[in-house]
């Protein structure tokens, strides 16, 4: 008899303790109504990439036979090697702008190498593609981040003419 009473008292005490827990306490997650649906993302918070200027080596004049290379760095400085005499003054570094949620960290992906092609089937290599982004880029308080990119063109043999290639860029939130 007494054991049953003790047991009942124990249960009652526990129930009272549970009843005494207010659903409004901050640490009681289980008291809130759970949800499994992901919060909707407004169009304003989606990350967008805007290409501002294309990377343009302008004219590369060969000084003789053989190959060479021309480099445009993200800071706009240039250099040449081998048979390429000089880069024209109108050469332009590429630039782009990222728009999205203020303060969000982003990952920017670009290929290390692409091929540029001419109308008559010629091909040259564009590699050592680099940007001036920080190691962990983050959108500023206005939700924007601009960056510049450059790389190296390598010319072999008797390549000549106008060359063009696409440079895919992907940006996503971390």
């Amino acid at each position, binding site marked *: 008899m007494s054991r049953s009473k003790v047991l009942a008292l124990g249960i009652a005490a*526990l129930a009272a303790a549970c009843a005494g827990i207010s659903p409004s306490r901050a640490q009681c997650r289980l008291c809130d109504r759970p949800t*499994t649906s992901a919060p909707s993302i407004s169009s304003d918070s989606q*990350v967008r990439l805007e290409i501002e200027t*294309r990377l343009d080596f302008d004219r590369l004049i060969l000084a003789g036979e053989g190959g060479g290379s021309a480099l445009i760095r993200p800071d706009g400085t240039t250099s040449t090697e081998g048979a390429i005499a000089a880069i024209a003054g109108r050469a332009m570094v590429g630039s*782009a702008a990222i728009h999205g949620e203020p303060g969000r960290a982003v990952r920017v992906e670009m290929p290390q190498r692409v091929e540029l092609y001419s109308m008559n089937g010629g091909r040259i290599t564009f590699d050592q593609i680099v940007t001036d982004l920080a190691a962990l880029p983050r959108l500023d308080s206005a939700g924007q981040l601009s960056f510049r990119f450059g790389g190296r063109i390598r010319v072999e043999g008797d390549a000549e003419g106008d060359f063009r290639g696409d440079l*895919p860029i992907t940006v996503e939130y971390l």
Partner: protein
Amino acid sequence: MRTLLRMTSVAATVAALAFTAAPAQAATPTSQATANARILKPLSITWNNTNLNFADIVLDTNPFTATVRVPFNGSPIVCPAPLTCSGTTSVASYNVKGTNNQLVHVSTPNVTMNRVGGGGSITVRLLAANNLAPSGVAGDVLLPNSGNSGVDVAIGGEFDLTEATPDGVYTGNFAVTADYM
């Protein structure tokens, strides 16, 4: 007691799922930047062994001012009165080689012809042809090919004469340069 524990466990699990469900990562569709370059062969300009020759010009002793011109297009010499021109004139000619379909400018500075034996000089204004007719700046040439053929560029010229110009034979040398535009 057992029932209470089970309910607690289920509620905690649901809460955990709700807590860890992160917003879907927003990703841009891959955007296409582009890279461009124009590769050009070395430009060369060589003389075709033809000189600019105004031939013979006879002055008048009366006061005058006249401009003599040898056109670069092969037309006869422009010889205004009271001058008298005779003999065979010719234009200078250079061959320019480079990359097909590129615009090149041939620069022709003024040249000074000095009288043989001294005592006088004449400034000749050189006029380089262009192949961008009907309009075009003198000396602007569109390369029609790549490699050894190149394109020949004719160079004429003009100068001013008066009755005070010393007679005699005048000669001079000039340099021509070509650059990709």
